[in-house]
């Protein structure tokens, strides 16, 4: 392999501007005449709006739903049977349905002034009872979030796959638990942002947006503004983290766009932290009842899952609120060779902000309940939980393996990841230490969690989700410049994943060009091929495959031109280190660029008309996804007097196939793992009994900092995918999936001697102390 191609930990091209503070995020862009927007947001979770009174001196600078005819509503539709459609107005019409729902917008040269203005708007509410806890919202008689629906169920489904009833009958062991995963905020360091203006020269609406899926945003903006697609351009510049938040068409962007066109001035909205933590799309709130059926050796026969996901008040576009619950059946078998499942899934509407698709989407929840039930089974039969995992996992010789839920696992050695994790954690030593006891009275525990992660799934999978988001061929345009450098245009968006470097490494792999001579461009819909964008850990596989394909096509054209310049035959030349090398000499790419662009008289008589610009499409075959996986192991120390949990050790054994840039992969795994630690121990977006948002600042909503993170140790396995370019697999989300389960299993292992089991996140000291108190152990 080339030293700067696949497998090299090349330092990032994108680092320099960020290290000098020269990145350009939406809030950094200054357009003359910009007005800043502040939204008046509902202070109440559920109410009818009786009146909105705007002072006379502010009329023309404050806008409400009455000013937004023809804009929206936002409608996210799924064609899954029984899905209920919600209309999400860009500014609240007759009702508000969550604390934070936008009601009016004020515009001023300064944001501070706009905030002064919204304080002067008087809104009269007729309060309604609020549906807050999703399990309650599901019951008959609960307040209806959408009064035209018979109940609050957005979508539900039931699956029975494999010989479930037969397995249940013959099971020697039945273990049931209930699990709760807290609602969380995504909390990227850069909040959402939109800056809209109308470009009269190009006759198009231009929206700068902090976004992961610029083309999808453009599609949605045009749709909900009633414009043609050719009239809308979205530019996602540098984006300060996305993680699955910045993937929907936001009401605020639509309002900004509509007003920018109406007032003929740029309109800017920068979400502040209070808005993000209280009113923005939240995520992850699950309620599970899970039963595992096994034989008396711990071999799983069936899983029975009842899951309710809190979908919030409206479906976002295009994902809808049901996409999280709807996946839970498909991923329930996880890494196990599970013969049967029964699953009841429901997405329930509540008077809380809409949910988005945060890193891992449904997997962190299903991994939490699934991996905790595995440990419960192991404890019931007196076996080591990691051994029970190994015994039940899909074995490498079974690959490719089709689960009973129709997921096709391409490659991997799941049991080996467990073996390695167990070795790293040194389970025997921990058991010995537990028997000795700690002199300070703390309790040590070890916990494991394994998962598989479907990445880069394509048309065949997403077309079945029923939403207006189906990726096709991923496109890349690769163009050699007149001085022999390379420009790559892709439709994905890199906001931390290092793709300005990794895609350049792929170009290096094919063409030998120094990644520093490769400019990767993305984010501007005018300058990039259409793509559904960056989500579901798809980008390196899809865009990488497209880049590789385009580079290979380009290589053929380069060979023809280069051979001609070298007076050799095309078959007698090769491409290496950005040169064309023939039997009697070599020529640099810059000579080819010069010939094509500046001196076409030097070109061969027969040459591809496409020249040095190639656009290619790519998708893996099959495109049902390529599966990464990992086993995490946590070693914890629990102080039973304070309820505190300390992470003493944390190990990750992960496999994402062939790594393009190991350094970048490690960064993704570590970052995801720390977000998972946040879910496990710290993060909870709290709502009061009437739906009031209680965690409105970072003083209340805790995300992990440097002191909360141990020296996480990473180990890697590499089983390439047989279906992708270079055998690469997606990896962006994986780290976030397992930590809540691994840490909970470790805490439960530690607390086993006290007869206490924790089954909810975050595992706070108060929850541990309450459990100990309930067990009479305090």
């Amino acid at each position, binding site marked *: 392999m080339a030293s700067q191609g696949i497998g090299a930990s090349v330092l990032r091209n994108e680092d320099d501007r960020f290290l000098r503070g020269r990145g350009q995020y939406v809030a950094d862009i200054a357009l003359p005449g910009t007005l800043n927007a502040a939204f008046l947001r509902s202070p109440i979770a559920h109410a009818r709006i009786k009146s909105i009174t705007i002072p006379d001196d502010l009329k023309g600078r404050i806008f409400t739903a009455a000013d937004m005819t023809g804009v929206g509503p936002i409608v996210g539709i799924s064609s899954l049977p029984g899905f209920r459609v919600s209309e999400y107005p860009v500014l609240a019409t007759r009702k508000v349905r969550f604390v934070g729902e936008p009601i009016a917008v004020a515009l001023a040269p*300064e*944001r*501070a002034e706009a*905030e*002064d203005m919204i*304080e002067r708007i008087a809104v009269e509410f007729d309060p309604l009872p609020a549906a807050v806890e999703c399990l309650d919202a599901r019951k008959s008689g609960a307040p209806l979030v959408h009064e035209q629906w018979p109940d609050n169920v957005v979508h539900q489904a039931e699956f029975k796959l494999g010989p479930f009833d037969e397995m249940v009958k013959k099971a020697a062991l039945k273990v049931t638990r209930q699990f709760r995963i807290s609602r969380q905020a995504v909390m990227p360091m850069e909040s959402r942002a939109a800056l809209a203006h109308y470009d009269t020269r190009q006759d198009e609406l231009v929206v700068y947006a902090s976004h992961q899926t610029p083309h999808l945003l453009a599609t949605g903006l045009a749709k909900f503004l009633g414009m043609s697609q050719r009239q809308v351009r979205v530019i996602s510049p540098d984006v300060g983290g996305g993680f699955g938040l910045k993937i929907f068409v936001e009401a605020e962007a639509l309002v900004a766009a509509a007003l920018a066109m109406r007032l003929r001035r740029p309109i800017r909205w920068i979400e*502040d*932290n*209070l808005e993000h933590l209280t009113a923005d799309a939240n995520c992850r709130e699950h309620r599970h009842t899970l039963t595992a059926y096994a034989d008396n050796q711990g071999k799983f026969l069936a899983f029975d899952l009842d899951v309710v996901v809190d979908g919030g008040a409206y479906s976002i576009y295009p994902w809808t609120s049901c996409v999280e619950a709807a996946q839970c059946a498909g991923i329930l078998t996880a890494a196990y060779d599970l013969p049967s499942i029964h699953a009841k899934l429901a997405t329930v509407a509540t008077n809380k902000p809409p949910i988005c698709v945060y890193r891992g989407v449904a997997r962190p929840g299903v991994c939490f309940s699934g991996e905790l039930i595995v440990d419960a089974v192991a404890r019931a039969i007196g076996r080591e939980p990691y051994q029970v995992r190994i015994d039940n996992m899909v074995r490498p010789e079974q690959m490719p393996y089709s689960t009973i839920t129709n997921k096709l696992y391409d490659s991997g050695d799941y049991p080996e990841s467990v073996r390695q994790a167990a070795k790293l954690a040194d389970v025997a030593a921990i058991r010995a230490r537990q028997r000795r006891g700690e002199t300070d009275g703390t309790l040590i525990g070890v916990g494991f969690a394994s998962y598989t992660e479907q990445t880069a799934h394509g048309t065949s999978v997403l077309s079945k989700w029923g939403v207006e988001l189906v990726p096709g061929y991923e496109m890349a345009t690769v163009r050699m410049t007149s001085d022999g450098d390379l420009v790559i245009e892709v439709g994905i968006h890199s906001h931390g994943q290092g793709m300005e470097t990794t895609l350049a490494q792929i170009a290096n792999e094919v063409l030998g060009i120094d990644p520093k001579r490769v400019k990767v461009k993305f984010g501007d819909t005018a300058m990039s091929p259409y793509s559904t964008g960056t989500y579901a850990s798809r980008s390196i596989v899809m865009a990488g495959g497209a880049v590789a394909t385009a580079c290979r096509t380009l290589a053929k054209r380069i060979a023809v031109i280069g051979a001609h310049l070298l007076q050799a035959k095309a078959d007698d030349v090769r491409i290496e280190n950005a040169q064309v090398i023939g039997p009697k000499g070599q020529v640099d790419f810059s000579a080819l660029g010069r010939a094509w662009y500046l001196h076409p008289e030097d070109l061969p008589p027969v040459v591809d008309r496409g020249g040095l610009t190639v656009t290619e499409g790519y998708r893996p075959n099959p495109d049902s996804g390529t599966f990464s996986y990992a086993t995490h192991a946590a070693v914890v120390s629990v102080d039973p*007097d*304070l*309820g*505190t949990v300390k992470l003493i050790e944390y190990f990750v054994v992960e496999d994402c196939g062939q790594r393009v840039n190991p350094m970048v992969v490690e960064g993704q795994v570590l970052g995801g793992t720390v977000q998972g630690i946040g879910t496990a121990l*710290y993060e909870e977006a709290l709502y009061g009994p009437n739906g009031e948002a209680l965690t409105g*600042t970072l*003083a209340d909503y*805790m995300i*992990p*900092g440097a*002191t*909360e993170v141990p020296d996480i140790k990473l180990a890697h396995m590499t089983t390439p995918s047989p279906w992708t370019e270079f055998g690469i697999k997606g990896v962006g989300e994986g780290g976030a999936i397992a930590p809540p389960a691994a840490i909970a299993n470790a805490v439960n292992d530690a607390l086993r001697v006290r007869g206490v089991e924790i089954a909810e996140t975050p595992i*706070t*000291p*108060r929850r541990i*102390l*309450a459990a100990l*108190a309930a067990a009479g152990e*305090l």
Partner: protein
Amino acid sequence: MKAPPLDYVRPATVAEALAYLKQGGDGAMVLAGGQSLGPMLNLRLARPTLLVDISRLAELTRTATVNGTLAIGSAVIHADIEDGKAPDPCHGLLTETAATIAYRAVRNRGTIGGSLSHADPVGDWCPVLMALGASVVAASNAGERTIAVADFVEGVLTTSLRPGEIVTEIRIPRLAATARWGRYKICRKPGKFADAIAVVVMDTAAVQSRVAVAMPNHRPVLLPQAAVHLLALKGADRDGLAAFRNAARAELAALGASDALQLHILSAAAMRAAADALNRKRPQP
């Protein structure tokens, strides 16, 4: 999250500051480090019409030792105490306390007087200063008065400061050579509001001990009855500490502010602060 409209002045002397406060009436607020007020302004939870910036007043940033008592200006920043720029007559208790306040960037602006006056129930200074028997000096146009810290903080975010008064100085008596201190802060992560802070200052030879506990929903308190238990302990003896803990729990329960779990946590902090004091080596003279 932008501050509401306000005016700002930076007086050159304490007398000028007091004049501005009087002039500004109810709408005037003192600005020292701004680390508590700044966030409140951005959330519009505070709406002063006039901010009177006292952070640079030389009268408020000097320290002096008078008869062993440290007189520290109210506008001295936490970072200077952390770095030992102010003399610490309390065997390192002051420097250690300062070092655990929020983050260095906050300590570079936040002041001891500002923190005390803000009276966050789990602010770091109050329980320490109560356990040390410290007092504040409050100045107004009418003159000066000295208030024991234990009396100064009256409730959650409320002090006995009268309108038009500024804390100018904190007076901290020297800790005897025979005294020991212990401190235990229960906090989920640095910078987060604490769940409990307990400070123990004891001098067996002088038959003196104080136990101060700070908790989220109540003003910090001294536990005189529990403190008596400590004097009987020779070392960090397990049963003795358990008895002390029970006494602390009972005294805290009588406040009526905490549920069973919070009493458990607060008394755990008190016990660990006591163990810390008993285990701590006395500094060599």
